[in-house]
């Protein structure tokens, strides 16, 4: 191998190595950003028809979503502020008011409204609702199971 050829090979391997290293660093940083990101950003859930007197609780979720996430599990509990009793809200009986994609995988702004019936044995009072949701999120090559909880959702039952 002559000297010129040796220099060319060294230069080429340096460029390839540099590009590989850059790719690895970018992938690593992107992966860390993805794993640490929330499913919903600047998001909040509220009850829109407080005090509830028609047997149906209306919820609204506003915020934004950066990554494609598919809901795998969701459940919600209401805690009575006076007694501490817990009531499970039945997601199987939810109906959509504004969107038919409440927890679908679309990215961008999120503005969903849905309703759930008041549990049969739930007495009137002031409640705090907590909503837990689990997702499978996908971004480029990455896949990650994530969960997000919303609490301090005020609910008044008449």
């Amino acid at each position, binding site marked *: 191998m002559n000297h010129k050829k040796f220099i060319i090979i*060294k230069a080429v*391997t*340096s460029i*390839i*190595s540099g590009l*590989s*290293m850059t*790719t*690895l660093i970018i992938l*690593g940083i992107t*992966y860390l950003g993805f794993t640490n990101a929330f499913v919903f950003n600047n998001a909040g859930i509220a009850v829109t028809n407080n005090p509830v007197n028609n047997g149906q609780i209306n919820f609204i979720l506003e915020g934004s979503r950066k990554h494609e996430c598919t809901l795998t599990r969701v459940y919600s509990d209401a805690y009575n502020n006076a007694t501490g009793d817990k009531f499970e809200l039945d997601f199987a009986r939810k109906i959509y008011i504004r969107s038919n994609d409440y927890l679908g995988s679309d990215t961008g702004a999120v503005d969903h409204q849905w309703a759930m019936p008041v549990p049969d044995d739930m007495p009137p009072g002031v409640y705090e609702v907590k909503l837990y949701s689990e997702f499978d999120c996908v971004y480029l*090559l*990455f*896949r*990650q199971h994530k969960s997000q909880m919303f609490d301090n959702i005020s609910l008044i039952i008449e």
Partner: protein
Amino acid sequence: MDNKEQKLEDKIEQQVERWDLFARIIPTAFLVVCSILIFTGILDFQQAFWAGLGLFAVTAVTWWFWTIYTIKHLVRTLHRASKNLAEVRREFRDVSKDLEDLRKKNNES
């Protein structure tokens, strides 16, 4: 420079060559191998990420200690070289003074 010193410097030069080769090959090799393993489903991205981070950490620590060792050696070599140079300078000064004295003696006689 004694034989032992020369051997040590050759060894360091070889190690530098090896580091150079390592830096050229490993990032690309790691990227290619991990891509194949991820696309064939043997590894997921999280495992590849931690493997890469581990490899990076081991390389960084090894390189750090190697650098400290090499710098120590270089400092010793430089110190020895400057000491030898000072010795040569002093000898030159002595020779120059002797020559001057000799010239003065010759002129007087």
